[in-house]
């Protein structure tokens, strides 16, 4: 494996003194697409914002490292960070309507992104901004440079955000639910655009979403988050075919079997995710888990390597659903509830 | 916040009771100032017009805590007696502004449409003239007796109260209990006086305290330029005016009433802030 462009090591984020992201680690190879999926409140967005150093009081990073190339972003001063943000690592945000400055023309905002890292003369910066706007599929890019954000539709605004993010050819692009605020019809257009531009430019991407359908089509690998931790990480194919953690398993079966958006299907998992500060001991999914046993409550559970996947479970689901249960869980197979079995993939 | 799921016409249930533990320093200070003025004869051995021509502009001493004026009158004594008038005008105008402003604002909120337009545009017009100039016009027309000063100041402050009253009444009557009450056939007047009024009272009271500060400044301004309280009657503004005449002889003469006005206005502002924020505090149900 080549050296990762982004290496997040044991990232911890707290709101005040309450931990909300509890030790996230992942690596991103050049050009790789990693999906970060989970319910809202699982800490996905906070992870991305913390990588960028964009957290606001009272949210702060309380531990870990974010290695971009050879430098730890968390150890940089504001001035040093400003040289990295927008140049080597960029981000696209959830709500394009509020993410653009309403008082500046779109052109001025793209030119600003260029000029902050690349001191080019005015006309040249404008030309580059027009090219970028054209690349992201805004018609009449030259004229539209002088338009204000309110004169754009939601999808077009998100395209402008993409142009801003890619203005300086970053190595890493973080996309925080880039399509959530958009119409269903424009969602796939925007995802395809990100897909195409990132391939062309070789940008490594982290896609944060709760839409597994989107993640399936876009990502090489997927990491599932629950209550501020990764519970499973594997290649997209493996995860969809063979989710090992009961939580991701439930997520996958909801999507794959019913073919509906996870947001609507999530009630299929009984109960609510724990609130920050009230996370149970041991496995944090235990209260909602159909496979939980007493041992799950004993101690924090590590992320274990299992057939090429990483799984945070002491009783993972069998890797081969066709041939009975996993050896490690055989003795408890009888206690599986019918409801849990129903949710098993029909492979 | 609401524990019961049913919509009932809440009687006492929604009535807010603000828990004030120890009164804040600003209120204590105001209380001390007011009490000292009211009981001036008990506080000071001098009369406000006791002249001592032998000791004009005496420095502060054990006998005269703030010194004496050009006629040897005790400054502290005069401040306390002057405070009686200042505070009277202040209190009177606040009451007038509260009564008129509340009726004005609540009726505007209640009778939406034409009546509201007329009432609120009237408020706009009166507020387009800077207060002090409006006061000059009124004093020129109606004279500067104590009564007319109080009424004029009260009328000038009423539009501000009216605006506040209107906005909080609109907020309050848009709540479910009000429409439910109307649906149940409760009388409008009854609902407004028994249910709405207690709930908007904290906001109105906070506005009244702000008005008290404005009234204090207005009275002092008018008296200072000679169009307010007329000597030999005295208020803090009058004393400031007299001290201003002797600025080079004895700065304390002007500083004392100035500081007293400042402290009072400052405390009133602080108290208003506090009163405004207690609305969001935990409410105690009886």
């Amino acid at each position, binding site marked *: 494996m080549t050296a990762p462009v982004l290496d997040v090591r044991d990232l911890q984020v707290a709101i005040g003194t309450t931990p909300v992201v509890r030790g996230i680690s992942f690596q991103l190879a050049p050009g790789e697409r990693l999906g970060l999926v989970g319910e809202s409140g699982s800490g996905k967005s906070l992870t991305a914002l913390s990588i960028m150093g964009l957290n606001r009081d009272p949210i702060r990073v309380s531990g870990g490292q974010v290695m971009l190339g050879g430098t730890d972003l968390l150890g940089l001063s504001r001035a040093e960070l400003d040289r990295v943000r927008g140049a080597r690592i960029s981000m696209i945000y959830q*709500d394009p309507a509020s993410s653009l400055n*309403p*008082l500046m023309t779109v052109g001025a905002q793209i030119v600003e992104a260029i000029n*902050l890292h690349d001191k080019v003369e005015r006309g040249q910066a404008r030309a580059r901004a027009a090219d970028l706007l054209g690349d992201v599929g805004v018609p009449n890019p030259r004229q539209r440079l002088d338009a204000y954000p*309110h004169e754009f539709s939601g999808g077009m605004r998100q395209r402008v955000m993409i142009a801003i993010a890619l203005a300086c050819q970053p190595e890493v692009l973080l996309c925080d639910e880039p399509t959530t605020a958009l119409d269903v019809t424009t969602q796939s257009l925007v995802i395809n655009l990100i897909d195409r531009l990132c391939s062309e430019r070789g940008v490594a991407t982290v896609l944060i979403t709760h839409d597994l359908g989107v993640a399936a089509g876009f990502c090489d690998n997927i990491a599932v988050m629950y209550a501020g931790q990764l519970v499973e990480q594997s290649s997209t194919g493996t995860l969809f075919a063979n989710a090992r953690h009961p939580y991701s398993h439930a997520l996958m079966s909801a999507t794959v079997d019913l073919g509906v958006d996870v947001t609507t299907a999530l009630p299929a998992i009984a109960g609510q995710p724990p609130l920050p500060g009230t996370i149970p001991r041991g496995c944090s999914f235990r209260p909602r888990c159909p496979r939980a046993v007493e041992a799950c409550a004993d101690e924090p559970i590590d992320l274990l390597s299992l057939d090429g996947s990483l799984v945070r479970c002491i009783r993972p689901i069998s890797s081969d659903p066709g041939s009975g249960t996993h050896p490690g869980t055989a003795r408890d197979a009888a206690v599986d509830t019918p409801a849990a079995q129903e949710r098993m993939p029909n492979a | 916040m609401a524990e019961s799921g049913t919509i009932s016409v809440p009687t006492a249930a929604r009535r807010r009771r603000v828990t004030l533990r120890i009164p804040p320093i600003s209120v204590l200070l105001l209380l001390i100032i007011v009490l000292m003025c009211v009981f001036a004869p008990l506080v000071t051995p001098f009369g406000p017009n006791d002249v001592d021509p032998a000791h004009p502009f005496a420095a502060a001493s054990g006998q005269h805590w703030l010194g004496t004026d050009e006629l040897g009158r005790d400054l502290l004594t005069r401040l306390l007696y002057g405070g009686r008038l200042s505070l009277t005008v202040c209190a009177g105008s606040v009451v007038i502004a509260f009564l008129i402003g509340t009726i004005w604002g609540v009726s505007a909120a209640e009778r939406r449409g034409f009546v509201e337009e007329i009432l609120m545009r009237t408020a706009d017009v009166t507020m387009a003239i800077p207060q*002090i100039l409006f006061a000059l*016009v009124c004093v*020129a027309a109606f004279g500067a007796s104590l009564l007319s000063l109080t009424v004029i100041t009260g009328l000038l402050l009423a539009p501000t109260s009216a605006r506040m009253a209107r906005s909080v009444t609109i907020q309050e009557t848009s709540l479910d209990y009000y429409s439910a009450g109307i649906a149940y056939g409760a009388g409008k007047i009854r609902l407004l006086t028994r249910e709405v009024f207690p709930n908007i009272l904290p906001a109105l009271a906070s506005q009244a305290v702000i008005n008290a500060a404005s009234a204090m400044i207005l009275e002092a301004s008018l008296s200072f330029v*000679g169009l307010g309280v007329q000597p030999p009657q005295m208020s803090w503004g009058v004393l400031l005016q007299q001290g201003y005449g002797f600025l080079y002889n004895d700065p304390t003469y002007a*500083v004392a009433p100035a500081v007293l006005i400042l402290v009072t206005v400052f405390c009133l502002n602080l108290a208003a802030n506090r009163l405004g924020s207690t609305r969001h505090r935990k409410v105690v149900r009886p």
Partner: protein
Amino acid sequence: MQFVIKRVVISAILLVATSVLIFAILRALPGDPVAARLGTAQGVNQAMIDRLRSSAGLDRPLVSQYFSWVAGMTHGNLGRSYFTDRQVSSMILSALGPTLELTVLGVALSVLVAVPAAMAAARRPRGWLDRSITAIASAGMAFPPFVAGILLIIVFSITVHWFPARGFIPLTQDPVQNLRSMILPSISLAAGAAPLILRYLRSELVTALNSDYVRTAAGKGAPERRVMLRHALPNAALPSLTMIGLITGYTLGGSVVVEYVFGFSGLGALSVQAAFRRDYAVLQSVVLLISALFILVSLTVDLLGWWLDPRTRGHRG
């Protein structure tokens, strides 16, 4: 465009209503300013009073008096003072300078102090700097302009002789002395006015700094300074523009007493004098003029905000 027309019409109506109100109050009582002026002077007889009354137009019906006042205004004729018989318009013209300068300087000083202070305070809401600035601001709000003026005179004119205590030197006569004579009066006005802008702008800045577009700017790599000046400040300043109108009213009102304190013969001093003498011809025009200035500034500021905001202005021309 509709907004502009509506706003202009409302201001015009407001102006007319203000003139009616001022006129009505001054004529509400049957007191006779002419008789008051002549008083019990020797040799006054009814014929003299009547002659003066008719020359001032006081014997005509009120409505006709009002309209002749308004009609005169349109060509600069505001009538004559009941008291000195001078042209009201010339009295106003000679008094306009000090008041306008005082108002402009007072507002400018308030803005100059309030904007940097608001930015400093908003950087870390509830931090020590924010708390100190907010505390100083609420103390400043307790300073009525004339009280501030007297205290400033005691400190800066009497104790240390830095600035003159009284007197207005016209700008045309000596710009340096003019500025020296303006410093204390301007500070007196700004003491109360600056906190009004400061508090409003600070809270708008806090909102702006928490907005998504500010996060975008930081994510682009914009330094803190640039984020504040280029992104947060314009967005916060736009709604705060209305405060400029408000403090202009405050400053115009405050100048009445501040002029008295510092011995300026401006509009404020003129209005006080007119009120003393019950010289309605002067008083009504001065008060209307000051109100008109206030209404005009509020209108201008509103239209400016409308024009500066691309969302309301619509497509660029």
